């Protein structure tokens, strides 16, 4: 067992809970979080940056007078636990000034439990030299190609140890570990700046150990990535304002799923909590169970137990166990991401998706792993062979969607024309746009399980003050019909 014992922190948490209750809290929880990270970037043959960081502190969430307050501090001491516990209650009572109804929580079994990310190679026990060598070698291989302006290779290793203690009796300790990275080549010329990356921007990340990065052959793909970046400078433009079939690579589909399914199924958005900032959702509760979100090919799963997912854990930050279920089943919208409070509003129980960005932020509903499940279209080559005319688009470069998650526009690093079942000419600056239900409704083929990969988004922003979250999205390449492509000339 490598999860910390949290003996001191547990005592301080109980002290903060006692203080909160004494001051009038009807519910309170305390999270101690320690986060360790190392990020390195090799650029143009030099180590541009390496930073090792740690952050440790605690946050107290309290309900008093039927309203919420949250306070956090990095001073881990008894007197501070008292101060922060009392402050959370003072803030909750101030919140009650505008209260329309008491906040209520769906029930959860208060458990004592632990969870730890399974891994093979602990990235923090490897030497820095070993970690760095992978980047230096891959980046050097790209630079062998003439015609590149900028080459990058990066890794991120990340660990969070956390203790959750609630006034209901929960006591949960977890250790989550993640590793990510990739390579990128940029070429400039002909009025263009073009980029190719592998395996997914510089943001590929999974839960687990160093084996996550080494299983992608960064060095073996460096030459191809470099060649494609240069080739894009002279590639023909993506066809303009054309309706055609589009095959999205798995990594692009994963981000498309994140934006157009993952966010609109957040129940806090659907109930208006993000209305002034991130926005609301077209998937309002009246649509639950009946709304046709996509074609019958489309099955999207919410699963906080998926191997390697950035949304994989034992318990969320309200002490609700990781769960699995459906967001979209055979094209029908059937499930939300929920908290205890929003679940209560629907008369159900939370499916455990409350997550906070470290100790200083309050938990909010976040995606866990929201994945497009594989179909039966075989391999990517099979899918291309089955397509008469269209464009294959690979790896995200641009993404935007409206505040109800209807109208989207994405751009990818590269595209290839498909003619008569064959991959033909490379095209540059590919983009596609549409409306969410129509787009998913046009999905007529998804590749099989052999092509399915657990991708991730380690930089999902939401909330005020801003919070970053790490979310997982499994996906395989898929085909969409009658899509509008090409919006820049």
């Amino acid at each position, binding site marked *: 067992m490598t999860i910390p014992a949290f003996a001191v922190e547990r005592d301080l948490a109980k002290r903060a809970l006692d203080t909160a209750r004494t001051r009038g809290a009807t519910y309170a929880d305390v999270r101690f979080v320690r986060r360790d990270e190392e990020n390195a970037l090799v650029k143009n043959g*030099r*180590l*541009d940056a390496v*930073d*090792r*960081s*740690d*952050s440790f*502190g605690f946050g107290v969430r309290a309900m008093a007078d039927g*309203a*919420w*307050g949250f*306070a*956090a*501090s*990095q001073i881990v001491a008894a007197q501070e636990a008292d101060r922060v516990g009392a402050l959370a209650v*003072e*803030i909750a009572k*101030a*919140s009650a*000034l*505008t*209260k*329309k109804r008491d906040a209520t929580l769906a029930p959860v079994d208060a458990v004592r439990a632990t969870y730890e990310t399974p891994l093979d190679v602990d990235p923090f026990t490897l030497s*820095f030299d070993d970690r*760095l060598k992978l980047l*230096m070698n891959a980046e050097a291989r790209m630079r062998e190609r003439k015609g590149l*302006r*900028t080459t990058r290779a990066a890794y991120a290793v990340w660990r969070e140890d956390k203790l959750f203690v609630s006034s209901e009796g929960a006591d949960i300790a977890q250790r989550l570990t993640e590793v990510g990275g990739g390579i990128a080549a*940029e070429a*400039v010329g002909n*009025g*263009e*700046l073009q980029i190719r990356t592998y395996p997914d921007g510089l943001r590929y990340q999974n839960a687990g150990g160093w084996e996550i990065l080494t299983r992608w052959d960064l060095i073996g793909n460096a030459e191809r990535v470099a060649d494609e970046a240069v080739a894009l400078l002279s590639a023909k433009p993506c066809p303009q304002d054309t309706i055609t079939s589009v095959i999205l690579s798995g990594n692009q589909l994963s981000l498309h799923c994140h934006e157009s399914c993952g966010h609109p199924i957040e129940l806090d958005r659907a109930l*208006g*909590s993000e*209305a*002034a900032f991130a*926005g609301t959702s077209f998937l309002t509760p009246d649509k639950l169970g009946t709304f046709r979100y996509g074609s019958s090919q489309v099955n999207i799963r919410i699963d906080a137990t998926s191997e390697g997912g950035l949304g994989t854990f034992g318990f969320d930050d309200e002490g609700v166990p990781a769960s699995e279920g459906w967001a979209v089943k055979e094209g029908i919208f059937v499930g939300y991401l929920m908290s205890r409070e929003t679940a209560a509003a629907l008369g159900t129980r939370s499916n455990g998706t409350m997550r906070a960005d470290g100790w*200083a*932020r*309050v938990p*909010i509903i976040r995606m866990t792993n929201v994945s497009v499940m594989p179909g039966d279209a075989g391999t990517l080559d099979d899918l291309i062979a089955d397509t008469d005319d269209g464009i294959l688009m690979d790896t995200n470069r*641009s993404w*935007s*969607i*409206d*505040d*109800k998650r*209807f*109208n989207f*526009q994405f751009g990818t690093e590269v595209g290839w024309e498909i003619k008569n079942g064959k991959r033909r000419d490379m095209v540059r600056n590919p*983009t596609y746009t549409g409306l969410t239900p129509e787009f998913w409704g046009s999905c007529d083929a998804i590749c099989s399980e052999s092509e399915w990969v657990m991708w991730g988004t380690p930089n999902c*922003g939401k*909330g*005020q*003050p*801003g919070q970053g979250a790490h979310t997982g999205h499994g996906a395989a390449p898929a085909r969409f019909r009658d899509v509008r492509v090409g*919006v*820049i000339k």
Partner: protein
Amino acid sequence: MSGVLFGDRELHAIAERALRAAKGDQAEALIIGKTGSLTRFANSAIHQNVTSREAELRVRVVVGTRRATATTNRLDADGIRRAAELASDLARRAPEDPTYPGLPAPRPIPSAPSAYVEKTAEATPLDRARAAKTLCDKASAVKLIAAGFVATNVQEIAVASTLGTWAYAPQTYAEAQIAAIGDDGSAFAQRVSTDVTSLDVEGAAAEAVGKAAIAQHPRDLAPDTYEVVLTPYAVRDMVGFLGMQLSGLAVEEGRSFVGGKIGQKVTGPITLVEDPYDSRSIPRAFDFEGQPSERLTLIEDGVARAVVYDSVTAHRNNAVNTGHAQPFVGLPAPMHVRLEAGDKTREQLVAAVKKGVLVTRFHYTRWVHQLRTIVTGMTRDGTFAILDGEIAHPVKNFRFTQSYHEALGEVRGISKDLSLLVTGEQFGLMTSCQRVPALHLGAFTFTGATRY
């Protein structure tokens, strides 16, 4: 001094301890302290109400031309020593970098107007809740729903180095945002001030509620290229994106629209100034390397004049360090941009439009093509058709795909009032603010529309 402030003495002591513990040829300590309090409301009631007090030390150690950093929020003796030793160890094992010039030598830092207001630092949960209640009540009075926040923030930045650098500045800012939402339309307003007692909460409420009343039941309007009037909320987005490209690094990497064009016309008649000493912004006279930040004219009447640098980028490009290092090492950027005012009232901007669109704000804007400054995004919270100089009716929100600097090629009017706005704070720190006017532009391309 407020209880939420660490103060220069405490931060100096932390920095000195870190520099002493570092094992290298040079060392630098950057400390960022922040107490952020934010009261968030939706459905006309407070639903999140938070405060946190945070401080973080980043130690940069240089060994020859090798360097590394370590960051910690454990500011006791052990935590500081551990961070310094970690950075030292990583630096020793890092590869040599012949392009690295070492830490910048200290230079005199000019005085800047204070951006610290005690009353902002001392604002209480009840103060913020009362302001939130004002915003909610104003909306409820006309059967609208309010969502938004009221925040008060204190941040301190301190930089020290073994070369003798010492720079310290406390800053405060208060902010209110409101979206007033009806059954079929919404509107937005935002106010920012270093002084919470000057935060115009009532004005924000009146603006959002008044505009929401005429934003209901938007009609379809075909996506096309239209004349536009952009409020400062939308202009801030343009200035933010263009600012990213007005750095020596962006030019070096071939992604800047001013690359190779200094001295040439790149936009219409606008003037963009980086002014860290603007008393009506949130001034700070130095950057995150403790170097004095220069006041620079980036674009003068449409002609590209300058880009900003930090120490590393300046050295690599044989340029003068303008003092624009950000907390993220190696990514210089302007942090106090002002788009100079014109001579029109906002009403006059609208009055000059024959057929066009008024945009309140943009949403989810992202690069499509950096070199051409093509950005895509949506309009939201108050988009209107303008006909014959008057707001005719609300329209459903558009998607745009537009080169920002090309859109500034045909500036037909600039408002004479500027709004102080902050970039959406992400992940803990406000690093940049802007003062921007409303603009009347001759052509802006909308490439799609949504259903509301």
